[in-house]
């Protein structure tokens, strides 16, 4: 199922890009969330898919008999999920604060740091 999954990841990436190009900050952050999911899936897939058993050694054994799912990408993705969550949570709070302070969530109306037309020699 790698090929369909690759296509799905591509689709999600495209969708996320589209969202991130939005002038609406909330849509942008939705895009980040979607892209995060796409990238996590990609790492997971890049470690090769398997329908074999999960990487849990039976409690009475020293090692798993036969093939098992690749545990390393799982650990990486787990870390990435958490980090992505931390970043997203902060970004959402920031979006709220942007609304409180600037009165808008549209990024093309946020012109405080680089005011339009003020670039003069």
């Amino acid at each position, binding site marked *: 199922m790698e090929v369909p999954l690759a296509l799905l990841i591509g689709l999600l990436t495209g969708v996320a890009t589209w969202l991130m190009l939005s002038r609406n900050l909330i849509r942008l952050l939705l895009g980040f969330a979607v892209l995060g999911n796409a990238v996590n899936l990609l790492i997971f897939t890049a470690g090769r898919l398997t329908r074999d058993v999960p990487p849990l050694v039976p409690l009475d054994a020293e090692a798993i008999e036969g093939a098992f799912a690749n545990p390393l990408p799982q650990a990486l993705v787990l870390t990435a999920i*958490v980090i992505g969550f931390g970043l997203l949570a902060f970004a959402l709070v920031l979006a709220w604060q942007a609304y409180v302070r600037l009165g808008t969530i549209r990024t093309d109306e946020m012109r405080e740091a680089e005011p339009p037309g003020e670039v003069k020699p």
Partner: protein
Amino acid sequence: MNSLILRAATRVLAPMMLMLSLFLLWRGHNLPGGGFIGGLVATSAIALQGIAFGPEVARRTLVLPPAVLAGVGLVVAVIATLPAGLVELPFFTGLWLKLDLGDGAILPLSTPLLFDIGVFLVVIGGVCAILLALEEDPETDQAGEP
């Protein structure tokens, strides 16, 4: 949300979820679970409390301010990296102390477990800090400049 049902359910659910989170933490080394998942379950319990009874109640459950709780967790996690130095092993090396409780039952105490407890606390403290800040009344806490 002042739903009676929610409050009643929370009264039962929250303690159970907290117990569950400890269980997940404990078994994580051998079965699905671990400090992070456990922490998230505990966080959900506290978030639920916050929604049902208000953030103040949730803060009381946490005892410490959430950010400080996360700091405590970080201290615990950092401490777990150090004992290896006492026995001249590299940074973060896992050390195991298997306590024989009699009857063949063995209680394995280890720095990885200590570390996982740190993870557990940081997750609870950190995520609760954000959630509770968001649950609080937005009108009263605009401390920043206009």
